[in-house]
């Protein structure tokens, strides 16, 4: 909980910088890149969060990496600040909070589309369009496959579920038959 509060605080600060510079979306993508990198490279993550290495060394490593993955200056400065204050261990939470704040600013939502089988891009686009039309916001879809759905789709937007799967329909039939 403390970590989330702290992460939200740093994310909000970075968002303000991004809004002032008009590059908050770029900063968001930068954070995403770094998160992916840290997730893939545990050794790098351990070095960046470890106080055993001098802050200058860690900053130098971070700068070297930032060049290779083309991070913006604001992002590099932000990482420097996190290293200085020994907050790199909260980076994934900060990136996640930033994404949420960024979505709020850009008036978009993230949805997870779960399907029983892989759908054609055309169908996925139709669903996305319909979701945007229903919510009145831009929808960023992430796709998942779950054969146990049998057929149909299920969409999760935050705490809301739009369920059109055969599995759920069968469950409803089952419950109704139990009640009779």
């Amino acid at each position, binding site marked *: 909980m403390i970590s989330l509060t702290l992460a939200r605080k740093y994310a909000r600060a970075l968002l303000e910088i991004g809004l002032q510079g008009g590059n908050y979306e770029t900063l968001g993508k930068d954070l995403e890149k770094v998160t992916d990198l840290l997730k893939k490279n545990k050794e790098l993550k351990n070095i960046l969060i470890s106080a055993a290495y001098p802050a200058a060394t860690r900053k130098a490593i971070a700068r070297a990496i930032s060049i290779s993955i083309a991070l913006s200056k604001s992002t590099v400065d932000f990482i420097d600040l996190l290293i200085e204050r020994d907050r790199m261990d909260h980076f994934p939470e900060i990136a996640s909070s930033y994404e949420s704040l960024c979505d709020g600013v850009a008036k978009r939502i993230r949805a997870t589309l779960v399907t029983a089988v892989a*759908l054609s891009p055309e169908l996925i686009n139709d669903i996305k369009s*319909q979701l945007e039309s229903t919510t009145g916001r831009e929808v960023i879809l992430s796709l998942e496959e779950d054969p146990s759905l*049998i057929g*149909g789709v299920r969409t999760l937007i935050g705490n809301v579920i739009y369920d*059109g799967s055969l599995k759920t329909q069968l469950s409803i039939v089952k419950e109704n038959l139990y009640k009779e």
Partner: protein
Amino acid sequence: MSRFSAWSGYVIFGILSQAFSADDLWAAGGGGGVPGEVFWQIISFVLLLLLLISVLKNPIRAFLRKRREEIKSSLEQSAKKEGESQKTFENWERKLNSLSQEVADLHQKISQEGEMERQRIVERALEEGDRIRQQAKVVAEQEVKKARTALRREMVALSIELAEKLLKESTYPQDQERLVREYIGKMREIR
């Protein structure tokens, strides 16, 4: 008093007759002896006897009277005690009769109470029997209901499982597309 005089007269007469008969014997024997001495002895004896009688007459009479009174008193007391005993006996007999009645009443009362208690026990047993029967009926009904529900649930579960299997086997890509289109249509309705 007169009886005593007669009795003393008889004694004197007897003694004198003895004395004379002894004198006769002495006379008939024609032997020696001393008849004058015997005569004086008899006289002195009679005098002694008269003296004794005159001296002892009143004390003996008083003694006898007293004794008679005592015997009379004893007899009266005995009669009185007999009367009391009789009364006590009657009293006890009456009490015994009364006790018998009490025992009979008590017996009757106990019998009645016993009968009432028996009736109460029988009634209670019947009520308890009814209650147990009713309870057993309810439990049996519940068990039947539970069994029916379990059976129905099992049937439903099996049916759904079968339906799921059939759907998995018979859902083709065109069906998936149709389902997605229906889903989109419903989303449109939500809006």
